[in-house]
């Protein structure tokens, strides 16, 4: 059974883009357009990895990381921030929140797959 990845981004085209890349590489992809939707998905099933944007209406990506880390099922799940934010301050916040890594948009699709394979396979 293929590994499942939860992608969280308020941008429709970004979600589509991630789905193209990840499905093309053989992963199952579940998309969420907000932090709340992501938490609903996360409560209903388990994922092998979470890729999340930072700046979203409602709860932001860092809040989502904290919320997921508080769930026992997601204590060790790789969570990668995928965001246009690139400051050290933000990365440090990500690290403190429990994110596994920080990838700055625009991302290279091959680089993204390298990171996904590193954690998921």
């Amino acid at each position, binding site marked *: 059974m293929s590994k499942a990845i939860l992608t969280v981004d308020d941008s429709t*085209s970004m979600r589509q883009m991630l789905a193209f890349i990840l499905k093309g590489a053989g992963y199952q992809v579940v998309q969420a357009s907000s932090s709340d939707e992501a938490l609903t998905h996360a409560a209903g099933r388990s994922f092998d990895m979470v890729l999340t944007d930072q700046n979203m209406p409602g709860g932001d990506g860092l809040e989502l990381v904290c919320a997921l880390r508080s769930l026992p099922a997601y204590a060790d799940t790789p969570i990668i921030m995928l965001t246009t934010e690139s400051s050290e301050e933000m990365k440090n916040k990500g690290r403190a929140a429990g994110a596994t890594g920080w990838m*700055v948009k*625009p991302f290279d699709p091959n680089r993204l797959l390298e990171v996904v394979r590193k954690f998921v396979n």
Partner: protein
Amino acid sequence: MLNNSRSYAQPGTLGALDALSDILSGVKRDVARSREVLNGAFGKIAARFAQVHAIAVAAEARDSGLSDEALNALRKVTDSLTIELQFEDSLSQLLDHVQGKVEAIGVALTETRTLVSSTPGGDAEPVGPALEVLARTVKSIQMAADAAVAERSTSSGSVELF
């Protein structure tokens, strides 16, 4: 919105503040419209990308008769489109920042209008409180600017694993 001017207020000052509020409302509408146009345009481009991507995937999966060179070229095109299409996200966030700044100025204008309206005739102009409002607004806008989108080049971004 043009409000009822009190007799002791400076009609010129209030009029100017109301005119600025109207201009800001126009800017807000422009930002909202820009977002609609942006989403529509990128949606169409993304749909075309989906078609090209599907062709590339199908060509790789089957014996399409395409040479390795042609397949590599197709793969490079889709990879490059994947990066370039992500600028919709950057533009969308820049619009968020513009919207945030416009809203901060709108709040400052409303507060300033309240100050000017409540100043009895003959008293000194509420310069001190108005300057405080201005300083707060500038600080708020600077904070929004600090959080502005970082990546603006067409190269792909960095990766850091913790």
